[in-house]
């Protein structure tokens, strides 16, 4: 009986956690909180990161490496 009670208590706790997580996710979904976070924080910081990134200058690559094309 005691073991059954423990199982029920664990199941009840799991149900409560799932229920709370579900409600939180629905709030995030309904109020577009995912979009707002991405727009206000994630995207501007990622864009700044890409702007700062050092990049190879591809135009420095010599163009004359290819074999000459024979006419005809």
């Amino acid at each position: 009986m005691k073991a059954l009670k423990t199982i029920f208590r664990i199941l009840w706790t799991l149900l409560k956690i799932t229920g709370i997580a579900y409600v939180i996710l629905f709030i995030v979904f309904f109020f577009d909180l995912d979009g707002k976070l991405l727009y206000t924080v994630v995207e501007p910081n990622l864009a700044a990161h890409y702007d700062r990134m050092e990049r190879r200058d591809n135009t420095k690559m010599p163009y004359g490496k290819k074999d000459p094309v024979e006419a005809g």
Partner: protein
Amino acid sequence: MILKTFEGKEIPLKPKALWEAMGPKAKLKKFGGRVKSGAIKEKVKRTADAVVSTSLKKAVSDLWNGKPHGERRLGDLYIPGTGLYKHREWRGVKDTFYYFHMIWLYNYAHMVTDIMEYGNLPDFIKGTLRYRWMGQTYLTVMHWFDRGMEGLRGPALRGSAWHYRGMVSESIRQFQAMFAADKKLHGGKTNERWKKQIAHNETVSGCIFYPWRDYLDDVPLEMIPYFVTCHVNNHTVLNYIDAAQSIGLPADPCPMCQAEYGIFVLDDYPDFAPIMITSNEACDGSVATSVLQDWFLDRPLFAMPQPMRFDDPLVQEHCQREIEECWKFVEREMGIPFSWDQYVKYAESFNKLTEFEHEKWDVAANTPYYPINGVAQALYRIYYSQDGDRPIWHEIDKRVRKILEDTVEKKINTFPKTRHRVIAWSCAPLYYSNWCTWAYNCWGLNCVINMDSLMFDQMLRTDTYEHAIEDLAWFNEKAPMRAMAVGGHEHIFRLWEFMERFHCDMVVMYDQLQCKGMQGIHGMFEDEFRRRNIHAIWVPHALPDKRTVSRREIRQIINDYMTTVMHEEPLDPSLLDFEDGDSW
């Protein structure tokens, strides 16, 4: 770290700066501004009117079923400028929770599982931090769903969302394939995956590589870095267009070609394969892309041009020989022989997708029960037919078939507020591919079919090698933009035939301002529209570049036509004019 406000200001993520920008003083100032402008008064009045005029029965019905089309006021949901929602749309209990469970939660969860299935998490993180087109775009993917599916209900919501799901999954497969082999993410070293992949232009059909599908993976180089990003988050592509022009390349060719080589100028391309196959599709601008890619990639490259006047019988043999030369190039460079059996296997599998596409067109053309909206139809069709046979397309078609058959059997009118059946012709604005969702919600313009969907309409025979190569050449020539837009005026004028076939009474005629081929035939279209007494709305745009003609301007053009020529009233006046210049 910075924080961007909805007004577009960037604030350092520090307590003092945040307090000054968003504290009570700033909020009070903003509120004062809204009181002065009368916005608060108007909102209070509208809410009071709504409360007074709504009975309890109506309120319960609106909660349970969602508001009827004319009362939704979808435009009020937007945060001005951003395209974000104050809150997502309440579509009634059933459809809101379908959206929450089967679209929002399902797709976020499957984005994670797909990343694990097609590659691994470390490569994904490295790729996200390395490539702008990756990090800045793919995190915003659920908003792409939102924009495409605004106002949809029932089977139309379900069918369209499955199409989007297919595209997301295939996109993840492609970028994970690139990242797994990418030399730039693996210390400049080549791995086994790198040796077994073929890179190709996004406009080279995946069908070309069927003879090696079980041994080699063909991955289109620009499909994810360029094409998909324009639809999902069009902020990204502007960097590449500007980069192309920054090294002195001209600004007047097609911006698609500019963006494609801009990726190389900015060194933002993954190095994931030992060889490259390019194409001249759809125009001479693409030839320039191939030349520049040949320079920047510096590896064996095969250029496989398609003839412009493709249905000239004299060019068929030539086009078939081009494909055979390409196959020889792959054999030579990759060391794996051509497999006829594999070609047959994948071509026959792909034919099943084409067969279902024909069934879909039949329902779209002849009934009001078609459960796919304009943007889902266009993007899914162009994506899978360009990409070639992949398991995800069959999985999606199976699901959509079930929805389609159910909708037809129950005779559910999927777009009940349709006032005009629209065909969209020529090349679409990639930054506003969801214009048709807006047009249906605002004006009842139901975009039944579009030109890009009608490309690649070619079954691939597999009974003999001669038939196979003949059909594959035709398939290759019927590629996007080539088959109709720049393939000769008799093809672009097939519009009249398709208008009749799909029972359309209106045309939305895209006017790609930097497409020289289409600009050349503009006047002839004007004449034909007048002669045939067809209602046609010209929609100017610059393909991926929203700075030339904004989305708001596109809406205004359609609004003007609907009020001044058609003398119609909008179904949802809140959607007539709103600012979304900074939206994804």
